Structures are given as C-alpha cells and as structure tokens.
C-alpha cells in the first residue's frame, strides 16, 4: 500500500471535488494549448506561403482581400487586370521576378490556377510523378488536391466555372493530369495548376457565346519579388498612383490580419489562464476541505509511524495527481478542439494544420502545471506536516 495508491484512493473518496478540479484544469490547459498552438501553426503556415513574395499586384479593392485571394487562395479575387499593364511592370528594372496568376475555375472546390512554372519553383515543389504542363488544358496537381480528388496521372476531368463548387461545368473542355507534386506544407498543395493560356482558352469560348465582352487578355494577379529594397520604396507608390491596378504588400497586410486575429486569440488565451487559476484554487480548496475532514486520519498515520514529511508528500502527490490528469485531459481536449477547428478550416479556408506534432507550448505547459500543483498544495501540505497527533487523537478523559 504505497502512498501513491493512498493518494489515489483519497482522490477517489472525494470524487466530486476531484472531478471538478480536473475539469477546470482540462478546460484551462486545453484552451491555452490549443489556441497558442493554433496561432503558432497559423503564423508558420502563413509565413511559409508568403516567402518569396514582396508585393502582389491586382485589381483595385481591399488590399487584404487581394493578398488573401492571390497568396493564400482563401478569398475571392478583387477582379482582373489587363495583360498589357502587367507586361510593363514585368520589365521594370526593380523587379527580380514576377509570376502571373489567373483564376476562374475550380474542380470539386479545388481552385484551378493558371500560371507559369516559376510558381512551382517559388514553393520549391518537386514532382512526385509526371512533368510540368506544356500545352493548354494540361494540369499539375498539388499533393493534397491529388489525394483528396483521387486523381492519377493521365486522368481527365471537367472544370467548373467560378471558385465555388456549384458553378456550371465547362462541358466542352477536358483537363488532363500530366503531373503531381510532392507535399510542401504550403498553399500549392491544394491547387490545380495549369498554364495561363488554358484559362484564356476556356473563357474565350464563353466570350464567343456572349458571356463576357472584353477583348483584351487578362490575368487576376501578379506576384512580384523586388530586386532590392528600392523596389519597396518606389514600385507600390508608382502602381497605386499611376495605374488602374493596386499593389499590396503581404507583410503589412498579414500583420494587420494578425492584429485582428490576435485579439481573439488573446481573449481565448486569457480565459484559459483564468480557468487554470480557478483550477488551482479549486485544487487548493478541495485539498484544504478534505484535510479538515481527514485530520484524524493524518494523526493516525503519524501514530502508525509516518513522518511529517511523508504526510507532506502525500498531500503534494494528491495535488500533482489531479494536475497531471488535468494536463493529460487538457492536451486531449486541446487536440480535439484543434482538430475540429482545422476540419472547419479545411472547408472554408483551405488551412490544414499539422495536428500530430507536440508543440513547444504543450511541453511548456507541463512544468507550469507542476508548478500549479505544488503551489495549490503548499499550504494544505504544510498543514499536514504540522499535524498535532496527540491532541487530535486524545480521548475525552
């Protein structure tokens, strides 16, 4: 009958208050760990997608919308820009490279993006099988897109007009899969890539059938990398002031987004921390209460040969047991929370969070939990240490 088993038996004897303490800890730890991990992974994900892009040029509108649509592929585009304008920009001496993007269609919710092959090299995506597209209507699939659409090399499919699944199909055109990329952990994983000409080809037919009447070729956005910091100083102003296009800087727009999201994260984190403090208080109070009840038992243990230190350890163990359980359930709860957010996110935002890695926050929460356990049990444990045997066990003589 070790003190560990005795500690466990004591917790079970006070099942109600023990459960309450564990639930509070579970919620607190779960919220703190999931929200901090989530914001970390989101930031990581967003930073990965932004790499190599200094500026995004697109139609006038909300700059954040432009970034979200062109870089992260999670919002609708602001509109189209004429190819002639872009050609001028491309040749600008301060531009190191630029990548055109054209949206218009999707297949089963996965965006079909018309671009050139430098987009693949931007995200350092290697080919799992096949080759890059070379002629119109040839497509290359990102790893997750290929996986979820269950498409293989050589498969054919029809695109759907628009960015939502519900659009009308382009019955007369059939795409063919010529390559599939390896997973990169970036936005490209969820895309279907083709040549810019493919997109034009498809929509020229619509123009013929009276769908649209622009006769100029267009793209949706242009991703730009500057040659040197002078580009940052001159190009955005030049574009915004002298052309019909707008230039948005992903770094600035994403910082704005973080500020917005950050408030939400901070609130959830604060609630989590408050819950953990309440949990610590709950552990403290339940230990103190059970101790009042068990005064005689502690004196008995002393009379049976237990040292004061052993009683101190017993109470500490009870507290740590509660806290460890809370930590364990908290991690599980946090994972379930992240899993549901990430599933929700997959549908709406194409954000796929890596759930299986143990985040540094979860590791950090462990010593914090232990500290909470020690602090909560300190006063009760000292009380147990000071158990006055003789007067407690005294008969009424």
């Amino acid at each position, binding site marked *: *009958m*070790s003190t560990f088993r005795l500690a466990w038996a004591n917790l079970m004897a006070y099942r109600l208050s023990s459960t309450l303490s564990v639930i509070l800890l579970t919620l607190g730890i779960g919220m703190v760990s999931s929200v901090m991990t989530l914001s970390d992974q989101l930031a990581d994900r967003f930073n990965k997608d932004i790499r190599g892009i200094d500026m995004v040029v697109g139609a006038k509108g909300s700059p954040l919308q432009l970034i979200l649509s062109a870089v992260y592929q999670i919002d609708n585009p602001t509109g189209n820009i004429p190819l002639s304008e872009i050609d001028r920009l491309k040749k600008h001496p301060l531009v190191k490279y630029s990548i055109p993007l054209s949206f218009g269609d999707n297949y089963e919710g996965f965006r079909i993006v018309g671009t050139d092959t430098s987009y693949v090299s931007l995200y350092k995506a290697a080919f799992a099988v096949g080759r890059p597209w070379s002629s119109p209507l040839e497509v290359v699939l990102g790893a997750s897109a290929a996986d979820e659409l269950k498409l293989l090399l050589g498969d054919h499919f029809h695109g759907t007009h628009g960015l939502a699944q519900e659009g009308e199909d382009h019955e007369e055109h059939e795409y063919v899969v010529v390559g599939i990329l390896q997973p990169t952990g970036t936005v490209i994983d969820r895309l279907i890539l083709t040549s810019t000409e493919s997109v034009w080809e498809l929509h020229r037919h619509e123009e013929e059938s009276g769908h649209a009447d622009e006769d100029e070729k267009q793209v949706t956005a242009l991703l730009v990398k500057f040659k040197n910091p002078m580009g940052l100083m001159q190009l955005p102003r030049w574009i915004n002031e002298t052309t019909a296009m707008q230039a948005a800087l992903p770094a600035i727009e994403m910082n704005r987004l973080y500020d917005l999201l950050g408030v939400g994260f901070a609130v959830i984190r604060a609630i989590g921390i408050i819950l953990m403090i309440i949990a610590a208080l709950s552990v403290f109070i339940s230990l103190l209460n059970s101790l009042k009840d068990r005064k005689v*038992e502690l004196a*008995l243990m002393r*009379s049976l*040969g237990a040292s*004061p*230190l052993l009683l101190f350890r017993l109470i500490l163990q009870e507290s740590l047991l509660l806290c460890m359980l809370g930590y364990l359930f908290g991690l599980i709860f946090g994972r379930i929370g992240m899993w549901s957010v990430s599933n929700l996110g997959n549908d709406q935002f194409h954000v796929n969070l890596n759930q299986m890695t143990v985040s540094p926050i979860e590791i950090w929460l462990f010593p914090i939990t232990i500290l909470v356990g020690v602090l909560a049990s300190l006063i009760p444990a000292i009380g147990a240490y000071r158990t006055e045997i003789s007067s407690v*066990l005294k008969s009424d*003589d």
Partner: protein
Amino acid sequence: MNSFDLSFSYPRGPSFLFPDIDLRAKEVLLILGHSGVGKTTLLHILAGLRKPTSGTVNINGTNLIELSGSKADNFRGKNIGIIHQQSVFIRSINVLQNLLLAQTLVEISADESAALKLLSDLKIGHRASALPKELSVGERQRASIARALITQPKIVLADEPTSALDDENCERVANLLEETVLGSGASLIIVTHDHRLKNRFANRIEL
C-alpha cells in the same frame, strides 16, 4: 519496557507526576484512573506521541524520549501498536489496505497473507475488502487490534477499549485483547476508567 520519573505539565494547565512502570514481555498492565488524571497523556507519552516534561521511557533498551523526529516515528511504528479509543481508520481504503499501509509506513514490505491471517484469527477475515465505514462497532474494534499487531510490536497500548461496551462485550473484548496480544508475544497496557476491568487484571496501577 519501563518508565521512570515521568511528569508532564500542560502550558497553563494541569501537571501530572506519573508512577514508574516496569513491564516484561507477555505481561499485562492495567492503568486505571478517573477522567482528568492524565491517562491518555500518559498513554501518549508511552507511545512517544508526546514528549514528557521529564523522565524516561525505555523499550528494549532504547530511550524513546531521546529519539528525535522521524526516528521516533519509525521506532513507534515498529515497536508500539496503539489501539485508539475511537476506532480510527483511513476511510478511503479497505480494511486489508489499512493493515498493509501500517506495514508500509514503517518500511516493512507489505505482507498480504500475514494480514489476512491476522484478520481471520480475529474472525473478520471475511471483512477484509470492506471499507471501514461498513464495519460494525465490534468488527471495527477487532480491525483496530489487527492493525495494532500487524507490525509485530513489542508493546500494545489500548486506550479505553471497553468503556463503550456492555458487560458481556466488555468481558469478551478484554479476553480477546489479552489472548491475541500476548499470543503475538507482545506485552499489553490498557488505559481505562472502566472499573469492570479492575478485577480482571492483577497487575495494575491506579492514577
């Protein structure tokens, strides 16, 4: 065991001077006294639960009073079995586990078969897995005796073991105590105000 020149005074309370005690193995000593004469105080001093103002308590050549801290705790746990007036148990664990805990607390490896044998010797073997609160008063007293004996102590101290019992049960418990404690090779000290025991034990001290 013997005690010599024991005295105790409570701060701002009564003071006691106790008669000397000399007890050999397998002997019984009855300490008889009215309320307020310091019976339990003496018992706690003999058990090392309380330090006397002066005097010595020797058990097998060790002066209990001079032992300090955890040494005294360990010595008490190993050599002295105490049967408290109210039968106190750890309520969250069953009778058998209470016995095993008594062993572990003094670093004797838990011996389940010895504990079970002791319980069945005391005719409560079938209650081994019952929680303390499920026991009847009589069963609880027997379990207390079992716990006092599980560490194979040299001395068993019993605090008012019979005062709450009727005549018939008083006699029965006295017999049971004497039989099992002396049978285990220990000596027995009973502290009580119960005068029914006066004629039961020849070796007695009146406070």
